[in-house]
């Protein structure tokens, strides 16, 4: 087994979902258990081979088996059948806020948690300053952690785990916590670990984070691997699985027959295929099916928002419903000059002149490329004027 290699072969594992997971002696002695739900399979034959230094994103619905896979890889939960092996020091960033002693100071907890991951006193001491610095706790480090906010717990938990130099780093949803600047710092720290040659398995519901960090994506569904391959393709697969590609995104309200509203939405790429990932500069088409009472003048409004909810663009168009009260509209963007991130398109129908109620939202993501940062690519270019002036003199 090489350092940093991860192998999972035909892994199966199920969990009891009973209220009393621990058995009682009475049940054992009587040789029977009270009736209850059957165990729920979490992994049903997962096979995975990760080469040292690879970065793999793991996506899937809630309950697809992502966290179970990490717990199995970390050796915390055993398999019922199959094989698991990881080379070198494996570190799982699971339940970051767990395992703190509430009455002890942050500093004392750093020592305990470091020891938990198998460090010696000297090894913890060597990293202590960096950890405290990274966690941004300042003087709070010497105060009992019971006074900490949940964000502080997680910051300290991440800071400890991120300074342990693992060969295999298993990360579960930790990037969803802390404020934005801390999230960026975590991503940088993970990138450093990757640069140092660590194998990384990242579980996340954030396609943007996966896109930025991972070269390979594994999509799990109901305890099985349904896709394993390059990131862009994997995320597309994920979006299809989550129903965010076809069938028009999330509906805010049910549109009654006869009432005005959006009935279907689809995002398409240049070739007319349904898609939810668009590269900067690619064509994007939005097909919308709307309904409105016949003879009424109605208006469709489209709004583009960045992931944080900032409105980037808004447009409206009047439409004439056909005799069945329906209309189909297409919005074409020949070149989508958005930069890496997640975006939402909101759609709503209202009688002419009134403020629309958005009934639908479709999310798409744009992979980050090198170079420009921000939301929009202004397509500008730099030119030096000094050279031209000196030439004129």
């Amino acid at each position, binding site marked *: 087994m090489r350092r940093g290699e991860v192998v999972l072969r035909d892994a199966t594992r199920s*969990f*009891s979902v009973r209220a*009393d*997971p*621990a*058995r*009682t*002696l*009475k049940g*054992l002695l009587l040789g029977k258990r009270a009736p209850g739900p059957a165990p729920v399979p979490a992994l049903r034959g997962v096979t995975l081979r990760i080469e040292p230094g690879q970065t793999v994103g793991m996506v899937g619905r809630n309950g697809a088996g992502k966290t179970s896979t990490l*717990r199995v890889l*970390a*050796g*915390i*939960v*055993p398999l019922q059948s199959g094989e698991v092996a990881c080379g070198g020091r*494996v570190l*799982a960033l*699971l*339940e970051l806020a*767990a*395992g*703190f*002693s509430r*009455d*002890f100071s942050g500093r004392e907890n750093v*020592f*305990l948690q470091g*020891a*938990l*991951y*198998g*460090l*010696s*006193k000297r090894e*913890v001491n060597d990293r202590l300053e960096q950890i405290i610095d990274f966690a941004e706790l300042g003087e709070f480090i010497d105060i009992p952690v019971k006074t900490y906010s949940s964000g502080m717990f997680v910051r300290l938990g991440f800071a400890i785990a991120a300074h342990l130099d693992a060969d295999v780093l298993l990360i579960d949803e930790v990037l969803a916590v802390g404020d934005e600047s801390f999230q960026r710092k975590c991503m940088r720290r993970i990138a450093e670990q990757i640069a140092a040659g660590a194998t990384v398995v990242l579980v996340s519901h954030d396609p943007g984070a996966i896109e930025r960090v991972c070269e390979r994506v594994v999509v799990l569904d109901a305890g099985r691997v349904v896709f394993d391959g390059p990131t862009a393709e994997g995320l597309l697969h994920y979006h299809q699985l989550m129903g965010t590609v076809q069938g028009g995104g999330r509906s805010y309200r049910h549109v009654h027959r006869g009432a005005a509203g959006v009935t279907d939405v689809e995002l398409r790429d240049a070739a007319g295929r349904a898609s939810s990932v668009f590269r900067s500069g690619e064509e994007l088409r939005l097909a919308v099916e709307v309904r409105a009472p016949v003879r009424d003048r109605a208006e469709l409004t489209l709004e583009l928002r960045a992931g944080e909810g900032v409105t980037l663009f808004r447009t409206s168009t009047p439409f004439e419903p056909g005799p069945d009260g329906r209309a189909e509209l297409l919005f074409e963007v020949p070149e989508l000059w958005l930069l890496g991130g997640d975006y939402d398109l909101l759609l709503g129908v209202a009688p002419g002149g009134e403020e629309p109620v958005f009934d639908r939202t479709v999310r798409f993501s744009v992979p980050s490329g090198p170079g420009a940062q921000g939301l929009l690519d202004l397509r500008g270019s730099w030119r030096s004027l000094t050279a031209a002036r000196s030439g004129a003199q």
Partner: protein
Amino acid sequence: MARYRYLFSQLVRRELRRKYKGSRFGVLWYLINPLVLLGVYTLMFGYVFKLQSIPDFPIFLMVGLVVWSFFAQSLMAAADSLIEQGGLVRKARFPRQAIPASTVAVQLVTMVAMLVLLVPLAVALRGTLVPALLLLPVLVGLLFCFVLGCALIVAVLHAYFRDVGPILAAALLPWFFLTPIFFEPGSIGYVHRHELVGTLLQWVNPIAPFVQAIRSVVYDGGGPGWGRLLYAALAAGAALALGSFVFRRMESELAVVV
């Protein structure tokens, strides 16, 4: 395993200070509680209901109580330990034996502290400054191994079967009165007439030989006898072997059940 020595010392520190952190007397409570207990038992059984005429009864009683408290408190604390530290068990992979072992180590610290108070008192009052006293650390070491082995079994069983703790608590009460703490089995008339009872009291109860061996060294100022020494060594070895075996067989699902 050596890698986790530091974890063990951290767990012991945490366990020692956790319970009474923020209280005025801090770790002193670990001594105050058993001292109060000792005082009450000495008063009640030594003076109020005087059972046997044993010279310097308080010393006699204290030796037995110190050994018993270590045994009983360790097992009770170990039973809950894995569940209480569930956060650690679910978080990382480390030798989980460290958790019950740290609770036993904390109780050992208490017992040693009590012995440090008690032994000079016994030496002064009973004149037991004899070479056999050198055996005391050996006996304490064997007792620790014995209790550690039992604690490993109790801890891992209780994590799976939550009845183990209550059963243990119920069993320890009669067990306490059957252990030669208040009495010396050899000097009870009834025991002389029924040899079987004497054997049961002194040899079947596995904690009895430890109590009697330590008492013979501290209180009587004599050797514990080869029989008791051998018994203690065998019991310690067997308990430790069985405890590690059972723990290793059952620990795999701990992160799921605690």
